[in-house]
């Protein structure tokens, strides 16, 4: 049996890599990948704790819900990115600085 601490430390490392990507990357798609890494770190935590709940399956059920939510988020975010690209001809978050049309 692998102890919980191992899973939690791996998840912390994934979270920090995702945080680094969200802060530094100058491309909206890479920022999105960083957000996916952060979400995956959270899901790993849920699954690791869910091992100790066999009857109610709390952790695993909500891990599945979180995966579905991540898929939904990505679909909407990519649609928004495509729209932004069509309007501004760039997907660099720093260059998009107009609020009005």
């Amino acid at each position, binding site marked *: 049996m692998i102890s919980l601490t*191992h899973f939690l430390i*791996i998840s912390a490392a994934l979270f920090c890599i995702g*945080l680094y990507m969200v802060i530094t990357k100058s491309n909206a798609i890479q920022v999105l*990948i960083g957000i996916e890494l952060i979400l995956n770190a959270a899901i790993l935590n849920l699954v690791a704790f869910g091992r*100790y*709940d*066999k009857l109610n399956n709390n*952790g695993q059920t909500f891990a599945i819900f979180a995966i579905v939510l991540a898929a939904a988020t990505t679909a909407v975010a*990519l649609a928004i*990115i495509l729209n932004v690209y069509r309007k501004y001809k760039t997907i660099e978050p720093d260059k998009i600085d107009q609020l009005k049309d």
Partner: protein
Amino acid sequence: MNLTTILFYVMAFITLGSALFVAYSGSLVRSVFMFFITLFGLAGLYVFALADFVAITQIVIYVGGILVLILFAFMLSNKETLSTLKRESSIFIGFKNWPSLILSMLFFVVIVSVILKAMPDKLIWISQAVKAGDTFKPTDTTANNLGINLMTRYLLPFEAISILLLMVLVGAAHLSRKEGGQ
């Protein structure tokens, strides 16, 4: 040090290494394809946490759905985005990235120290669950109980998520429609 532990460390190394490469690489295409490897490694880690159904779901939804979506998104956007990326990738950790590197390292140190202080293996509810035999064994099948719980105990979040998926479907189709085309 038995075989399970060695395999776990190998899987963790693959996951973290490919995630580091995703963050390090300047090219968008390379980072997306390394993200594939990260997701597969994470599915392996879920198997080690004895959640095989979640691992399969991860592969089906993430690798089959999200990554194909991301690939489509940058195939639909122009080649210019890829070329501007390459130009900036010559200095991989330039001077402007040091503060964020230090920030994320410090964040990691804080989280790890909190984890080590909290001692998650000795939490009260976990030791109670171990005593009551409420933990998964490697020989158990998890999918049956998960399906029953999904349809009884967690029916409300299940339905809420299905409504949300419908909204996302309509919203994404509306957002990615061509302007003025009607």
